């Protein structure tokens, strides 16, 4: 059995010197060739074939200038009118978070109670319930009424009378109101095609599930309204307005695109589904 007694080691640093030198040389060599090729050689060669000077090509390759080192950059078109002026920035979200519910309650009693009710249960079929609605959703719609991105015989003037802080307070107040929470009609009553549209959407028509945005906490767009326990007539009316394009304050035509592809009985089915209070 060979005995494996360690023979006295020669001085380690002598043995180590070549390793230290050769490995550092190899690693730096590889790194340098990568930097040389990536930063200088490739951009310059590519730039020359398309008539981009070396300096611009290198800046583009490093990401200091926009564009590819090998392609001309297209011109940017002229600006135009947006569909909605609301831009969610962190200070706007701070305003919403710190809105004063008491002042909101006072403003609601002064302006909104006639149609939307004190706690957000609207008095008429044509007025939406606002109890438990998302604060951001109310804020955006009021702001759109104020800037004219959305028009309504009464709401435009009401919104114009409110300043930005008042809008945030009203939104926070209604958002805090508990929804009526009737016992939701069991799912059995909702036709399976509607439940599927809400839960799975329709990949054929490019329709995402309603729940992927409208269910609380789904992680969808900030201004997505809560639909549960909303008035069926109101949902139906708004979907039809989106479908016809008359209402166009949805950013990037999200709702206009979907509503245009829904059939009338799908629209009615969805309206009753959400009126029943399903989340």
């Amino acid at each position, binding site marked *: 059995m060979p005995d494996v007694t360690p023979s006295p080691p020669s001085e380690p640093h002598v043995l180590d010197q070549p390793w230290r030198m050769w490995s550092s040389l190899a690693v730096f060599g590889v790194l340098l060739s990568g930097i040389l*090729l990536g930063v200088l050689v*490739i951009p310059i060669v590519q730039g020359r074939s398309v008539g981009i000077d070396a300096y611009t090509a290198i800046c583009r390759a490093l990401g200091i200038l926009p564009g590819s*080192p*090998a392609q001309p950059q297209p011109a940017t078109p002229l600006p135009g009118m947006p569909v909605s002026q609301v831009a969610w920035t962190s200070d706007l979200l701070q305003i919403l978070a710190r809105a004063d519910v008491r002042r909101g309650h006072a403003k609601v009693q002064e302006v909104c109670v006639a149609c939307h009710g004190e706690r957000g249960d609207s008095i008429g079929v044509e007025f939406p319930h606002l109890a438990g609605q998302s604060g951001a959703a109310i804020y955006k719609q009021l702001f759109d009424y104020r800037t004219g991105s959305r028009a309504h015989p009464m709401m435009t003037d009401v919104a114009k009378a409110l300043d930005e802080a008042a809008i945030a307070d009203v939104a926070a107040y209604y958002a805090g109101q508990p929804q009526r929470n009737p016992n939701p009609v069991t799912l059995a009553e909702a036709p399976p095609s509607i439940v599927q549209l809400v839960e799975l959407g329709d990949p054929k028509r490019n*329709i995402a599930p309603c*729940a992927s945005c409208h269910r609380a906490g789904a992680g969808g767009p900030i201004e997505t309204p809560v639909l549960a326990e909303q008035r069926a007539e109101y949902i139906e009316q708004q979907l039809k307005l989106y479908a016809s394009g008359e209402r166009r304050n949805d950013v990037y*035509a999200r709702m206009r695109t979907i509503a245009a592809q829904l059939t009338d009985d799908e629209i009615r089915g969805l309206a009753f589904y959400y009126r029943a209070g399903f989340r």
Partner: protein
Amino acid sequence: MSQTHPEMHERRILHTELMWSFGVGIFVAASLSMILFTAFTISVNPPSNVERLDPKTLHLSGEFAEHNLGTTVGSDGSVTVRAIATQFMFLPRCIVVPANRRVTLRFASPDVIHGLLITGTNVNTMVVPGFVSQVHTEFTRAGDLLMPCHEYCGLGHSEMWATVQVMAQDEFKPGSDGRISCAQR
């Protein structure tokens, strides 16, 4: 140690390993040289255009406002496609491009990370909020292609796709304002 003098063995082992490492060097050189060759000759790069744009105000009035989206043909004949990748759809839902002609596609996201590829082509990019993604390509065959969002962007990710209509040169007729949209089929 073993009866035959060990030095012969040990040096021979390291010698064979060195020969093998030489072969590995050829492997590395082969893969890198193909990359370098096509980068030099036909400018093959991953799509990289470091252009920052605030996602929060994208929809207001800049390049990616709603009415600027779609395919436009510039006065110099350059074809530029502008599209938005937003939670759970592309706008426009149908993108028309000419075949066998250089096209620049520009994408932006107002909300979360998206990504897209066009099936059967080399168009592939991530769309990151805060940046404009730009891809230059040429579509070699006419026909309808699929452009799905290939990066998880929320519960509606699976339903997020658009169609790309690659039109032959003669069908591709932009309007007077240089804009063209999909043919209804």
